[in-house]
């Protein structure tokens, strides 16, 4: 059983999907959660699903980079220093190359990639982090390794997270901060449901057939995150964890 008692863990994208499930699973393991997201109503809904503890909500857009430090400072003042961070906030865009432009790349990269690095920058300051050790987990995607047509921005933003995590793993090791990436395949979240609506039935069947164990559930990913945030993984940093029901075996 993974024990996260007395750990304060900050999660972006906590109002839905993998982020929400991580909050639930980690709170059940004893953690106190700082839930971050744009939709206050849904954050409150997530909070209601958590095992009772002194959880904290930060209602913000993760791309409002100037607001990160003051929000973290306030949270730390209330619940103490941070032991873990999951960057789960992410947006998806399916659009052929000919419809892409710099603004769209910026939007995707700001949420999926740059926000992860900006939160890491602030959180890794001595005044905010548990100086005896901490763990950061970036929710990337198996598409960060494998291409998918019509998703140049999404794939590249998730790929950038992977290499960024390795650079940070090296840079933050002396602060005993571990940084790892999780690469899910298709998981039954709202984002994926929306994406399914944009794909022809044949394509969905093809994607499904390419997951030998079928599509995943958010809990599958959350359990892996719980391990990476726990002391059981204390010798693991800079690693990529594929969790995709066998999608990338071929």
């Amino acid at each position, binding site marked *: 059983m993974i024990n996260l008692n007395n750990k304060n863990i900050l999660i972006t994208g906590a109002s839905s999907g993998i982020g929400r499930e991580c909050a639930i699973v980690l709170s059940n393991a004893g953690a106190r959660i700082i839930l971050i997201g744009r939709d206050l109503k849904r954050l409150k809904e997530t909070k209601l699903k958590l095992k009772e503890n002194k959880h904290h909500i930060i209602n913000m857009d993760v791309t409002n980079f100037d607001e990160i430090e003051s929000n973290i400072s306030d949270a730390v003042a209330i619940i103490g220093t941070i032991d873990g961070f999951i960057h789960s906030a992410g947006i998806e865009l*399916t*659009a*052929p190359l*000919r*419809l892409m432009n710099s603004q769209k790349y910026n939007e995707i990269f700001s949420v999926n990639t740059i926000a992860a690095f900006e939160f890491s920058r602030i959180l890794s300051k001595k005044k905010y982090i548990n100086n005896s050790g901490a763990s950061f987990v970036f929710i990337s995607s198996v598409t960060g390794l494998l291409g998918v*047509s*019509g998703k140049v921005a999404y794939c590249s933003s998730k790929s950038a997270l992977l290499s960024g995590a390795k650079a940070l793993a090296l840079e933050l090791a002396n602060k005993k901060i571990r940084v790892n990436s999780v690469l899910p395949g298709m998981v039954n979240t709202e984002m994926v449901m929306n994406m*399914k*609506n*944009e*794909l*022809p*039935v*044949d*394509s*969905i069947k093809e994607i499904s057939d390419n997951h030998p164990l079928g599509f995943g559930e958010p809990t599958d990913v959350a359990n892996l995150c719980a391990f990476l945030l726990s002391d059981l993984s204390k010798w693991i940093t800079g690693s990529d964890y594929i969790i995709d029901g066998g999608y990338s075996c071929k």
Partner: protein
Amino acid sequence: MEISNFKIDFKEFLEIDSIEELNSETIFRQLDEFDSFFVLTTIAFIDEMFSMKLTAEDFEKIITIDDLINFIGEEKINSL
């Protein structure tokens, strides 16, 4: 935008070179260019041009360019 221009723009955007022009008789699924990416590109094109969500399920019912125009609405195209 006139309907005739919309047809030209759509044909050009989808890079449909296998026929001279898109007309009522052109069945999308019979085009050389038709594949799953054709559907995806059409969905993205409609979203970009008209801020309309065309789902893959909707597309099942769209056989010709006229069906697509009906889905969008001539008024909406004309007002572009």
